[in-house]
């Protein structure tokens, strides 16, 4: 600890160089912090879902619909705990970009909230959702972003489901739900009451997009999925039942190699800046060989010299990494305005730890070669230079 003065003094030795190196390191970690959520979104890490939820979809096409009676039939199957259903509402809220920030679904309130316990809605708001025909609820982040409050009217312009009066729908916001950590399915959604929706739509009455059900015993989920699909095989509308995780993963895979590309770009960005910085830092350490020899002449142990040099590298990278990641965490609040399609803009603890670990490894990579050289330094040779 008593050597901290020395470490700081050497960092202050060339303030411009130290400042610029710190600044570019900070930029690298800022980018790391900003891009990590994007990478997560593309790799499917962002949507953490419950293992025991299963989705039943039309087997051949997303443009197909399931008859609503499938819901009751699946509910009656052995091993199915609770079944709910959901219907893609689509539509436009304000404009195309705002609309892409969240999805809109028609659901049966009671069952839907039962199969999705990760959505926390106050009890009186749940009652209001069940009992209000035109009721709708929305996740908190979306309510905050678009300044929606309970009691507001939410206008949606239909693109699929037109109603008796044309294409304008209006819902009453009766609740705002939170999504608990660790299971983000259902975030970024507006949910409306299915009964009202079904009564008011002019075509396709009695059809739904998916049945979502939970299984009592996780070990049975594969066999229950198979029995659902068997029940409807060779029928008018065959089904495909997969776990929610697989369903969501497949959606991400549909983004295709764009996701891969973005990840490659992230890696390139990060390593370019790191390499540059590493070069400058090791240059700075090489410049000081003479001074290190003086320290040794004064009686510093080999190990102390090694540690002083390493401490300098560690101090610089860890402080700048912390600052860069911290700044990223702050800026991420505005991420959804730049790229509305990705709505889960926050840094997980794991990402922060990963960033700090990278900083630590970087400090060793950059600091260790000159530190070892300093340790093995022959005083007479070094002073002669």
């Amino acid at each position, binding site marked *: 600890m008593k050597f901290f003065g020395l470490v700081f003094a050497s960092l202050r030795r060339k303030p*411009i*160089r130290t400042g*610029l*190196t710190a*600044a*570019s390191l900070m*930029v*690298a970690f*800022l*980018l790391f912090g*900003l*891009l990590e959520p*994007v990478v997560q979104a593309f790799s499917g890490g962002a949507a953490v879902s419950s293992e025991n939820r299963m989705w039943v979809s039309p*087997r*051949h*096409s*997303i*443009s*197909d619909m399931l008859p609503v009676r499938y819901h009751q039939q699946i509910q009656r199957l052995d091993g199915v705990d609770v079944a709910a259903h959901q219907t893609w509402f*689509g539509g*436009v809220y304000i404009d*195309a*970009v705002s609309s*892409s920030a969240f999805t809109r679904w028609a659901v049966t309130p009671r069952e839907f909230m039962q199969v999705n316990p990760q959505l926390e809605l106050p009890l009186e708001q749940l009652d209001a959702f069940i009992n209000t025909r035109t009721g709708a609820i929305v996740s908190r982040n979306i309510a905050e972003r678009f300044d929606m409050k309970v009691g507001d009217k939410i206008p949606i*312009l*239909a*693109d*699929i489901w*037109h109603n008796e009066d*044309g*294409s304008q729908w209006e819902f009453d916001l009766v609740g705002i739900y939170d999504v608990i950590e660790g299971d983000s399915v259902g975030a970024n959604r507006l949910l409306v009451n299915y009964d009202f929706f079904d009564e008011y739509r002019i*075509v396709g009455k009695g059809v739904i997009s998916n049945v979502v059900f939970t299984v009592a015993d996780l070990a049975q989920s594969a066999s229950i999925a198979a029995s659902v699909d068997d029940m409807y095989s*060779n029928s*008018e509308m*065959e089904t*495909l039942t997969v776990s929610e995780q697989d369903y969501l*993963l*497949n959606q991400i*895979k*549909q*983004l*295709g*190699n*764009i996701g891969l*590309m*973005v990840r490659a*770009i992230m890696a*390139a*960005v990060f390593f*370019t*800046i790191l*390499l*540059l*910085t590493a*070069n*400058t830092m090791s*240059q700075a350490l090489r410049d000081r060989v003479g001074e290190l020899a003086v320290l040794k002449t004064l009686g510093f142990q080999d190990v102390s010299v090694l540690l002083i040099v390493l401490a300098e590298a560690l101090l610089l990278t860890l402080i700048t990494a912390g600052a860069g990641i911290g700044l990223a965490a702050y800026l991420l609040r505005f991420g959804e305005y*730049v*790229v509305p*399609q990705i709505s889960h803009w926050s840094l997980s603890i794991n990402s922060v730890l990963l960033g700090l670990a990278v900083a630590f490894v970087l400090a060793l990579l950059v600091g260790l070669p000159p530190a070892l050289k300093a340790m093995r330094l022959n005083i007479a040779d070094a002073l002669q230079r």
Partner: protein
Amino acid sequence: MELISQIIAVSLMNIRNIPTRLGPSLVVVVGIGGVVAVLVGLMAMAQGFKATMQGAGHDDRVIILRAGANSEINGSISFEQANIIRNKPGIKKTAGEPLIAGESYVSVNISKRANQSAANVPFRGVSEESFVVRPEIEVIEGRNIEFGKFELIVGTSAADQFSGLEIGSTLSLRNAEWLVVGYFDSGGSIYDSEIWTDVLMLNTVFGRGSTYSSMAAQLSSSEDLEQLRISLEQDPRLTNKIQRESDFYGAQSEATNQLITGVGISVSSIMAIGAIFAVLNTMYSAVSERSIEIATLRALGFGRLPIICSVIVESLLLAIAGGSIAALLTYLFFNGFTASTIGTNTQVSFEFMVTPTIILTGVSLASALGIVGGVFPAVRAARLPISEALRGS
């Protein structure tokens, strides 16, 4: 004149010195190269996607949908309405027959070759007129579909991207077996990502009844859009909207383009800031290593301006070198690279396009970064006190 020859002399001296300071100089080249590579790559991606989406769009062609629908998948036009629309003014006629085609559009689940996971592939039911309205469609292998049969033709990009679509193979969809009879090409537009069949067969199997998803028509001339629009709007039997094909596909690609451009601009600007720090670092240390040299020049009577210019020229040249190498590498590796992603509802395949404009943008950015990163060290070089520098302090 004297000034210019001084600038040239000092700049050349600096440039000849670059090999002795290879490491720090490479920092500038690599740093700026990285920024330019990312910018060019993302712009090429956005450009390629846009070109594919708009390649289908011709100004004299229109798409008619149900009012309120913003993609074909949501459309529905009854056969009665379609017959009314067929006889509206403004639609081009050949041999007395209007050039307008009723089509159905659904998306079907087919495995991607790359990861064997199901993807939403656009499946279009076409009429015989569809091929007249879109003359660029060419069957390049096998033969065209026979109407009235469960036959398919597959776009070239779709054939590349999805498995089980070889000519002669059958595809099982909704309890029907469809035979792949040929491949078609539309010159790189979005249709290449689609699978086509007879609209009536699609309607029967997918329970579409007597409705189309959309109609595609050829206008007599591109100015006839308004005439047709007014005529559709004033007809009480119709609830349709009409859009130029180019506008329609432009709107479809907007969200994805915004995503790529948003990411591209944010990432490149932050990277650019990092690169400027790297350039500053290199140039400051170049100036400080050369302080004796610079002071000698000043003592010999060289002015401040030539010194300033020479430092800026050096950093500019390094930056342009980095930018050009990066742009060239991006061009070599990514131009023509095929990617596929999900468009509004369905898979779209497209090729990265590194255009001259994009390369120029990249190199311009590199130059700007080089100049900005060179200015401050240059001013410092010019301000070095001559006597102190010569003493080597």
